[in-house]
């Protein structure tokens, strides 16, 4: 059984346009299905507005999906009561993009990491404190950092605090929503290395949401490419990058700058009239599907 299975997930945002005009319906996530196996690093890539972050948030019900199913260990979390959902979130945690706005500026780093333990009423004060110290060591922060405020940390260190908070409850699934996008490239490499180490050590499964294809190619086992609310291509990373099949995937890959100044540059521009947006995914190779 896969750890996470998303089936026909739909999220429509309705925007009122005034009294007389019909409301505008934005199909942010439009019939998205995929599975994430235990121990996998699954990449969800796309550009702004593709629906990748909304998909991540729908899985945790941070936004309530319009329809579909989200099966976590075989159970549909969308039918959980709020109390049951709260308990389920112990197993599913999220690390946000912006280490500047996702940490409460008026709380000390130690308290930020301890908060989930308090909310879930776990352990005595002393036990919680010991756990926080352990988590700090785990993500490469020092005990002396416990009493500091977020503004005293660099971006990379803040992201480590965010990771420590996400790991406090021993989750099985971590959704990393552009978790390293705001960081300098050398710091990015350090945080990625930490995430990979923790994955092995703690048997974590990641849903890695990102816009940076170069990053995803390096670390993910499988990748799904999103475009305008739909998955247009999904497959094993190597297969998908070696043989991109959907016109959007091709255009996207051809737009990524390469490090070689002499590499031939063939920009592929996307012509939306060349493909059917509604086409179902069909198998185009070994462990490789595209909506063509």
């Amino acid at each position: 059984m896969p750890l996470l299975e998303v089936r026909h997930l739909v999220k429509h945002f309705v925007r009122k346009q005034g009294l007389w005009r019909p409301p505008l319906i934005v199909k942010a996530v439009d019939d998205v299905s995929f599975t994430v196996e235990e121990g996998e690093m699954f990449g969800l890539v796309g550009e702004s507005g593709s629906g990748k972050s909304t998909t991540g948030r729908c899985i945790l019900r941070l936004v309530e999906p319009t329809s579909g199913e989200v099966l976590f260990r075989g159970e549909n979390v969308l039918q959980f009561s709020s109390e049951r959902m709260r308990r389920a979130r112990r197993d599913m945690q999220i690390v946000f993009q912006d280490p500047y706005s996702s940490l409460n500026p008026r709380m000390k780093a130690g308290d930020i990491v301890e908060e989930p333990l308090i909310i879930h009423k776990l352990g005595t004060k002393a036990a919680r404190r010991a756990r926080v110290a352990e988590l700090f060591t785990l993500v490469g922060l020092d005990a002396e950092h416990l009493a500091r405020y977020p503004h005293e940390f660099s971006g990379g260190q803040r992201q480590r605090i965010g990771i420590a908070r996400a790991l406090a409850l021993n989750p099985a699934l971590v959704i990393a929503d552009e978790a390293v996008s705001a960081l300098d490239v050398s710091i990015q490499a350090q945080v990625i290395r930490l995430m990979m180490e923790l994955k092995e050590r703690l048997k974590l499964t990641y849903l890695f949401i990102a816009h940076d294809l170069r990053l995803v190619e390096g670390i993910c086992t499988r990748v799904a490419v999103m475009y305008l609310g739909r998955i247009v291509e999904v497959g094993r990373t190597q297969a998908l990058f070696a043989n991109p099949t959907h016109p959007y995937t091709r255009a996207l890959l051809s737009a990524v700058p390469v490090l070689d100044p002499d590499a031939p540059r063939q920009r592929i521009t996307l012509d939306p009239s060349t493909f059917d947006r509604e086409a179902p995914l069909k198998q185009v190779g070994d462990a490789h599907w595209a909506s063509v």
Partner: protein
Amino acid sequence: MTPLLDVQNLTVVFDGVAPVTAVDGVSFQLTPGETLGLVGESGSGKSVTAFSILRLLQPPGRIAGGRILFEGRDLLVLPEREMRAIRGARISLIFQEPTTALNPVMRVGDQIAEALTVHGIATQGEARDRAAGLLEAVHIPDAARRARDYPHQLSGGMRQRVMIAIALACHPALVIADEPTTALDVTIQAQVLDLLRELRSQYNLALLLITHDFGVIAEMADRVAVMYRGAIVEQGPVRQILRAPSHEYTRGLLAAVPGLGPRTAGGR
């Protein structure tokens, strides 16, 4: 060839209880039509260097030493009035974030026209016509109608095109582009880089391209200067820096760039 821009030993200090030397003896040159990539991570001093060239540095930052020769004149000793004639006209600046760099309550056509009238290059009426022409030059479809739009009505990529149109309005010799595509999606980034490349050869622009992305450097730059903690640690032709970096910091930085392998059929 005599350099268009010759920065010699530029030193910038931020005063305070513990003064910080943000730029520490930086020297580089740019010839007409050339693109120099200034690359480095946050806090390396690359943006401070750019702002110093235009004398836009705000206190507590101050230029503590060096010379900035542009077309043979030292910008650092120029009276502010003459500096204003250079700023935006001979040297212009493209910012990272078009959303904050554009005036939200002014039509984009008028913002382009303003660049022309401020420098006395065109009258109000002429400027308005030229603005539409410039929007066409940066490939904004239906330019005449778009000129009447406000920035919020345009997408991020379109806004960056407007910024580029403003930067080019007065036919500058040098454009400083500070992370011009960092805020954009990768497909939009590719379009904006294509545009910059096209306009660069059309107007024989010298481009000082500030970025943290070695991929953008590889696509655009003739030469590269790598900044680290306020100093240029390595400088040279783009192929040499990317293929045989000699400084340890450059090597580390290049190694940290997530690699995208060679593409095969269908890809690149």
